[in-house]
Structures are given as structure tokens and as C-alpha cells.
């Protein structure tokens, strides 16, 4: 047995990345390659969705209709959301999971490598389907990313294309989530107990549970839309005994957990970065795990806070208001723990740390505006205004996106084997952090003053803050161009990275050389490495 083991490892050592583009990138089963594919795909989608945001902000720079017609404007808001959520955020997180989870738990690869590749390759085809709607009669979907009936049913040729694209993305997400759960539950190296797992693994585990429980529900909702449109069912039509509000309930049963799918892995990344650059273990590791699980559970019983204004029994409003506010408790635990982690640490401010600290402040602003929106009577005023837009962009951009960028800056030397240009990365951070606030903070004022969302033109009283917001948007958009340039030049060359990369880094991913070899942990790591790496 021992003999065959060494023979096998010797065999694996010869085994670098396969030659040839097809073998390496299309037929691959390697978690690192698939992670790279996901991240590159997400990056392209981020810039595509960002270009749509630029169109939106250009049109809103001043009142009146300047550049696009209202129908196309509505397509822009709808497609911006779909592309960013399903094409940018979710694949970026799956890409990071693919790269880091096997490295962090001492596994040779993901548990189901072929299915892993299938999850990825569904995504480009889903987006060919979704994006080709721009070239159909009637243009791309324009009824909002939530796909509410009856409006969505009045869409043109784009309607079934968007529906099938959502089905494909859903299948991809479900398979990706199954892979993450099975990997974390079955592939951990001996000695890597559940409560020794890095928090990125923990938050992804909860995220994967959420994905498996809600993506099929979205598939069901979309299926009902298709049959209502083409096959004469009456799920969302009162004439036949159904109810369009029923769609909203089903959709948000998916939709609220979905926002935690976008943010929980961010919690994980921030929980990795802050201890490293504070040179202190994470404060309250176990309470972080329990807080994550509580948020995961609560996310299933709060969905109707998205629809207080559609009409709901008073008991329902009270229930969903109170459960929503309850989420502030575990979230508060997290913010407290992150702050306590930095307390009396010897902090240094490398780019990942800068993004993580700004995440802490700016995500919390988004959390607070979320609490305001949770108050049902107040929500009647805020609903469908720019205040909502400001709220979810604060949690998604300086929240999720900053965590993704921070995570890439944190692990990039491990992937490429090179350090990147720290000065330029800090420019990237400061420009992003300043412009993101110029972009989104004024939208709070606009919303409280009553400016509705999803409109191409507005009353002149909203002109000033819209102009400011648009300037912020252009600055933020331009600043992001630094990011692909930095990644490209870091992959091409640069100062050699050490295995540990950062002075304060702990964990198994830092015990393999940089760049991480094509096959890592073919043999399980020694128990001492696991004990040393555990953050507490």
C-alpha cells in the first residue's frame, strides 16, 4: 500500500498542466483551471454590466432624454442587474471557491471534478442566450430583473430566451453548490475538523445550502411564467383564480436568500483578510460560524419585506418586519468580531486589507439602510425609490464586490507566483472607495426626496444629486480599468512571491508553494500544518 502510494505521487509529480488549449481549458477537471475560468468569465461580465451602468448614469446625468429611448433604458437596468448578479457576482464567488476550498481544506481537488466543469460551461451558453436578446425584435428584457408578471409576460421575443437562460444558470448554480457541499463534507484532510475550517469554507458551506434550497424554487417560478405565457395556465392571473402577487412571494423566497448567497462568501473573505493584516487570530471564530448559520436560517423567513406595499395582511407585515430586523443581531455579531479582531492588532494596510476595512464600514452603511427599509410603515415611503437602489448597491458594491477584489488581491500572488504593483493597487483602492461613495451616497438623498427607480427622466429638483452620482459612476468605472491591467501584469511577471506571501497569513493554502502547483495536496497535509494553520 505504502509503495503504491509513493509510486502514485511520483507519477503525479510529472503531471503538470496538460498541453493544448482544449485539454487545458475546455475539457479540464482541475479545480484551479475551472476557478480561473469562472473568474475570467465573471470579470468579463463585470465590465459588460458596468458598461450598462455607465449608459444608465449617462442618461441620468441630467433631466430629459439625451442618449437612449426609455425602452432601451429599461433594458439597461434589467440586464445590468441580471448580468451583474448571475454573470458577475455568483461566478466570481464560485471561482474563488474552486480555487481556494481544496487548497484550504487539504483536498486534492473538488469532489466531483467533471460536474465542476459542467457547472462552468453552462454559464457562457446561458449568457449567449441572455445577451442575444439585444438583437431580437422588441429588444432585451425590460421589465426589471425580478421578472414580475404581468409585465414580464408582455415582453417580446426576449421572454423565453431570458427564461431559459435563468434555467441554465440555475442548473449551473445547483451543481456548483452540490460540489461545494460534498467537497467540504467529504474531502477535508484528516484532522481538518469542521471547527478548524477557515471561515471562507464555512460561509461557502452555508451559501451552498442556500443555493440548493432556493435555485429550484426560482426554476419553478420561471417555469410557471413560461406556462402562463405560452400554455394558458393561470398561476399569476386573477381571471383564472391565480394572483400576480403569488409570483412575488415565490420569487422573493428565492430572492432574499439570494442576497445572502452574494454576501456570505464576502463575510468569509473579510474574515480571512482582517486577521492576516492585524496579525491576530480572528476574534470569536465560533460565534462567526453560528452567526453565519443564523443568517442562513433567517434568510428563509424574511422574504416579504421586498413587497410590503403590494398588500399583505397586517400579521404578515409584522412578522416579516420583525424577522428582518432580527437579522441585525447575527450581522452585528460579525461586525463586532471584525472590529475586535483589529483591536490592538499591529495593522498594516496592504491592498487586501484596505478593501476589507472599507468593506466593514461601507457594508455596515448598507446594513443600516436595510434596517430602515425593514420598518414596514417607513418602507411605504422608501419602496421603489432610489433609497432602495442606494441600499442594495452599498451592500453589493463596497460589500460583495470589494470583498471579491480584496480576495483577489489577497490570493493573487498564490495563484500567479508573483507580487503585484502595490502602489497601483492602492490607487485602485482609493479611487474606488472615494468614487463609490460619490456614486451611491447621494442616491439616499434622491430616494428620500421621492425619486423613483427605473426611470430614464426625472423632475428637475433631482438634477444636482443625479449629476454628482453620475460623476461618481464614471470615476468608479474608469478606476476599475486598473484592476484587469494589474492582474494581467501580475500573471505575466513580477517579484517572486514566497509561499506565505503575507507576513501574518495562516492556513493550509499558504503551505503550498506560490504559484500553487497544478496538483496540490495529492497527499493529505500533516496534522501539524493543520493545527498551525487553524486561526484560533
Amino acid at each position, binding site marked *: 500500500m505504502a509503495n503504491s502510494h509513493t509510486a502514485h505521487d511520483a507519477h503525479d509529480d510529472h503531471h503538470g498542466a496538460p498541453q493544448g488549449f482544449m485539454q487545458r481549458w475546455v475539457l479540464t477537471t482541475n479545480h484551479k483551471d475551472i476557478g480561473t475560468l469562472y473568474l475570467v468569465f465573471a470579470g468579463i461580465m463585470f465590465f459588460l454590466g458596468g458598461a450598462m451602468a455607465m449608459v444608465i448614469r449617462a442618461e441620468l446625468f441630467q433631466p430629459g432624454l439625451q442618449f437612449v429611448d426609455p425602452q432601451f433604458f429599461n433594458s439597461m437596468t434589467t440586464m445590468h442587474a441580471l448580468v451583474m448578479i448571475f454573470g458577475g457576482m455568483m461566478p466570481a464567488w464560485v471561482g474563488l471557491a474552486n480555487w481556494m476550498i481544496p487548497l484550504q481544506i487539504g483536498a486534492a481537488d473538488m469532489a466531483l471534478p467533471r460536474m465542476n466543469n459542467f457547472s462552468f460551461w453552462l454559464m457562457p451558453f446561458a449568457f449567449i442566450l441572455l445577451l442575444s436578446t439585444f438583437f431580437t425584435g422588441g429588444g432585451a428584457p425590460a421589465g426589471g430583473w425580478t421578472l414580475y408578471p404581468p409585465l414580464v409576460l408582455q415582453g417580446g421575443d426576449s421572454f423565453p430566451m431570458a427564461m431559459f437562460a435563468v434555467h441554465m444558470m440555475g442548473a449551473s448554480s445547483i451543481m456548483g453548490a452540490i460540489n461545494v457541499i460534498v467537497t467540504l463534507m467529504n474531502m477535508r484532510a484528516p484532522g481538518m475538523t469542521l471547527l478548524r475550517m477557515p471561515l471562507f469554507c464555512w460561509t461557502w458551506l452555508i451559501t451552498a445550502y442556500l443555493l440548493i434550497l432556493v435555485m429550484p424554487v426560482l426554476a419553478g417560478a420561471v417555469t410557471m411564467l413560461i*406556462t402562463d405565457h405560452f400554455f*394558458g395556465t393561470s398561476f399569476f392571473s386573477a381571471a383564472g383564480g391565480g394572483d400576480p402577487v403569488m409570483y412575488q412571494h*415565490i420569487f422573493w423566497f428565492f430572492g432574499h436568500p439570494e442576497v445572502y448567497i452574494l454576501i456570505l462568501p464576502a463575510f468569509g473573505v473579510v474574515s480571512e483578510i482582517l486577521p492576516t493584516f492585524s496579525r491576530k487570530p480572528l476574534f470569536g471564530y465560533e460565534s462567526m460560524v453560528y452567526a453565519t448559520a443564523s443568517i442562513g436560517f433567517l434568510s428563509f423567513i424574511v422574504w416579504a419585506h421586498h413587497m410590503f406595499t403590494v398588500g399583505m395582511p397586517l400579521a404578515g407585515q409584522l412578522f416579516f418586519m420583525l424577522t428582518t430586523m432580527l437579522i441585525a443581531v447575527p450581522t452585528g455579531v460579525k461586525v463586532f468580531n471584525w472590529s475586535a479582531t483589529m483591536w490592538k492588532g499591529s495593522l498594516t494596510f496592504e491592498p487586501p486589507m484596505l478593501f476589507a476595512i472599507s468593506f466593514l464600514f461601507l457594508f455596515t452603511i448598507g446594513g443600516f439602510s436595510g434596517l430602515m427599509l425593514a420598518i414596514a410603515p417607513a418602507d411605504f415611503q422608501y419602496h421603489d425609490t432610489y433609497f432602495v437602489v442606494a441600499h442594495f448597491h452599498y451592500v453589493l458594491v463596497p460589500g460583495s464586490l470589494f470583498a471579491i477584489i480584496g480576495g483577489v488581491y489577497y490570493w493573487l500572488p498564490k495563484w500567479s507566483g508573483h507580487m503585484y504593483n502595490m502602489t497601483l493597487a492602492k490607487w485602485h483602492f482609493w479611487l474606488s472607495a472615494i468614487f463609490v461613495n460619490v456614486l451611491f451616497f447621494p442616491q439616499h438623498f434622491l430616494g428620500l426626496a421621492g425619486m423613483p427607480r427605473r426611470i430614464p427622466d426625472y423632475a428637475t429638483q433631482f438634477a444636482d444629486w443625479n449629476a454628482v452620482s453620475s460623476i461618481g459612476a464614471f470615476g468608479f468605472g474608469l478606476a476599475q480599468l486598473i484592476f484587469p491591467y494589474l492582474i494581467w501584469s501580475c500573471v505575466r511577471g513580477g517579484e517572486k512571491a514566497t509561499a506565505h506571501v503575507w507576513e501574518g497569513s495562516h492556513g493550509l493554502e499558504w503551505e503550498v508553494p506560490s504559484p500553487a502547483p497544478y496538483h496540490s495536496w495529492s497527499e493529505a497535509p500533516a496534522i501539524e500544518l493543520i493545527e498551525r494553520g487553524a486561526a484560533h
Partner: protein
Amino acid sequence: MSSNSHAHDSSTYYVPHSSPWPIVGSIALFCVMWGAVTFLNDWGSAWSFLPGALLLLVLFFGWFATVINENQAGLFNAQVDKSFRMGMMWFIISEVMFFAAFFGALFYARELSVPWIGGEGVKVFNKLLLWQDFAPTWPTNGPDRLGGHADGSFETIAAFSLPAINTALLLTSGVTITIAHHALRAGHRTQLSIFLAATWILGFIFVYLQGTEYHEAYTELGLKLSTGIYGSTFFMLTGFHGLHVTIGAIMLTVIWLRCLRGHFTAKNHFAFEAVAWYWHFVDVVWLILFVFVYWI
């Protein structure tokens, strides 16, 4: 050893080196969906559907054949086996949630939207102003009496007629597959193949009887997919269930053929158990369906 196994033994976790199936599957699904879009949008001939569907068939045969060959070559250790088991379990849970969406629609309609349309509680103006004649009872096809016979009426299928027989069939098939499983573990191969055959035969009889029920519903009862919310929930729930029974019965047939070829041992039979789990899942969904769609 199969050709793509390299020099591998089961002492370590088996990681395949490359595979054509994921990209084949993605292209196949895309062709199928593009064909469906072309058809639904009346763009002309939906020709891409056929090659897509064929390719999907090739995919299933190819992918499963690859895995079966790897397994027969002894590449999988206990840990790989456990991964497959957990994967199948979570797949079934995702399927449960898919059905949950449609059951949610059923309960929402019965408990909330239909009474509201009928003017319950604060929705009294629906009764006073919109639909004075609508009686909010179940089953219903809504205030506009959609679908159904020419006069808008329709009949439903009595629970204790064909559906009760179908319930008996599925429950029996749950027993026969359990007997087959015990036989497999005890090494009684004849008993195994007899009871496995009984299971898939019962499954296909169920599908056939559902077909006759649908035929009766459409031709005589005025119960169609378009018969308001009742027809919608009835056909979507029983339809997706029937589709799953069909898939399950095909899977049972496949593992039955594999049993005849001598596959599976008393200890190593993941595929058998996966299909058995799937079959029990289909069974349980039917029981819920029988109670809430047909009976009460």
C-alpha cells in the same frame, strides 16, 4: 483498466484528468433551448432541437458509461463512493424544492388568492365591484371560468378511482425495490432481477394509467392545463411528477439491465441505491400529491 484511467489505483481519491462530456452537455442543452425558443417565438423551423436532444442522449450514455467503466475498473475507493452518495442526496433535495414551488402555488391559491378574489376580509371590494358572481370554492377555474367545457364548467378526477389504484401501484413498487435491494445485499441475483423488473414495470404502468387519466380529463371532463388555477396546479404537479416517474422508470430499467450483465456486488452498488432513493422520492411526492391534489 479503462483508457482514461492513467496509472491509478484506488488508494487515493480518483480525479479524472479530462472529460469531453461537460462541454458536450452544455452545447446540447443550448441547442435544445435555442430550438425551444425558436418554436415558442414562431421564428421558423426549430431544427436545432433535434440535434440537441440527440446529443443530450449521447451525453447521458457517454457520461454514465465512462463512470460505470471507471467503477468496474476499480478506480473508486470508499471516499469517491461517499461523494457520489452525497451528491445524489443533495440533488434529490434540490428536486424536492422544485416541487415545493408548485405545492406552494397550490396552497397559496387555495388558502389566499381564491378567497381574496371572492372578497374575503379587507378584499371585500373584489366581491362588491369586480366579481359579484364568483363563489370562492375549490376546485375553481377563476371568476372568468377559463378553459373547461363550453359553459365554463369542468369536472375533477375522483381520488378513489384511478388515482387510488396509482397510489397502490407506486406503494407496491416501493416495496418491490426494497425487496430487490435486500436480495442484492444477500446475493440472490434471480430474486434481484425479478423484483427490479417488477418495479420498473409497475412504474411504466403508472405512467400509462396517468396517460389515460389525462386523456379522459381532456376529452370528457373539460379539465385542461388552461382550466384556471385548478387545471394549472393539477397538470403542472401531476405532469412534473409523471415526468419524474418516467425518468425513474428508465433509470430502473437501466440498472436492471446492468444487473442482468452482472454489475453490482453486495457491497458496491451505489447506482442501485441512488435510483432506489430517487424512486422513493417520487413515491413520497405522489403521496403528498394524492392527498392535496386529488383527495382534499
